[in-house]
């Protein structure tokens, strides 16, 4: 992808490629992360970081993945 790699831009690219994911990871309108979805990378929980904050360098460089994980919550 072109431009800065942030949570927001990565999700924009993901949703453009896989439209069925629209609304499944973040709210359609507010673009806020869905409450039971978490973002992890480089052994850190990025869920509460700003969606516009640059992702860790290792993710931007392709050495580490950005993990989008459903919370291990009941049900």
């Amino acid at each position, binding site marked *: 992808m072109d431009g800065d790699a942030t949570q927001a831009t990565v999700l924009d690219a993901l949703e453009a490629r896989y439209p*069925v994911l*629209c*609304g*499944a*990871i973040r*709210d*359609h*309108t507010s673009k806020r992360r*869905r*409450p*039971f*979805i978490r973002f992890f990378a480089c052994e850190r929980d990025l869920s509460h970081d700003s969606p516009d904050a640059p992702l860790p360098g290792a993710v931007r460089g392709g050495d580490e993945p950005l993990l989008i994980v*459903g*919370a291990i*919550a009941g*049900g």
Partner: protein
Amino acid sequence: MSSVRVLVGTRKGAFVLSADGARKNWQVDGPFFPGWEIYHVNGSPADPNRLYASQTSGWFGQQMQRSDDGGKTWNPIGNKFLYDGETGTHQWYDGTQKPWEFKRIWHLEPSASNPDVLYAGAEDAALFRSSDGGQTWNELPALRNHESAPQWQPGAGGMCLHTIIVDPKDPKRIFIAISAAGAFRTDDGGESWKPINRGLVSQYIPDPDAQTGHCVHRLAMNPSRPNVLFMQKHWDVMRTDDAGESWTEISGDLPTDFGFAIDVHAHEPDTVYVVPIKSDEQHFPLDGALRVYRSRSGGNEWEALTKGLPQQNCYVNVLRDAMAVDRLDSCGIYFGTTGGQVYASADGGDTWSAIVHDLPAVLSVEVQTLK
């Protein structure tokens, strides 16, 4: 030969149960969308191969699915349900005002004449319509913008629009019901709505003339008499003969008149079915005995139907969208339970047998009659 296809939504997937008109030997397909809450699966009367499903989860939100081959294969369709304009607020359980927030789709009602047209009932309560087979959805905002809306309050299960009935003789007339705002009717295709709750009595509403606030659990209509509707309320079974302008209680000799599901015989418009549940605190049948009650007189006089249903140690519930009837000559009645059973009667309720015993908790049951 005619056949039936029972569409079952459960807490962990959808199932399709098929049989010929004898309704004795069943094929069970599923689970489709395993692990997802399937609030409703419904078929288009205009094209019985066209099915729609509401697929939802707390993790990933609302998805919508469509089948064009009678449930064999499914494809995702549009899942964007955006409130039109200012969302406004409604009452919360503690009496404070809370903004409208979309949670899930509870009910799908395909058009009788066009397989691409269908309505969807949402939580927080709103009515959506698609005219392109579910690819896009538009709200009919006049309902949510009704003057009474800021006073609407959720029932225990959420503020859900759970019932949509389109008048088969006039598609611009639509009845809906919301827990716990009550029943509403439009006569102009959703441009304007009126509450139709006169005659409903609820202990927790001191004003006998309250327009809204009643917890209506379900409405049912026989298509031959669109002015007559039956209602299962949070306590009380009710009936209207004038399209909701007034309601009268028909609980009569029911052992308890709490419950969720209600339906009407396909060919006998005064034959009504309910599944009495002990109370609002104890959502299971009286005495641990699962009984469907049938009235052949349009209410008040009820008989217990028990043959083939468990009469001891049965503490399941039957949810509001989990009962349906087919249109075969000997009308079949179907219902699903929170214990995962789906029961069927091929003789109007005289005898019952379980199609399946061990599904996940059943949220909804619909049945298609196929020629």
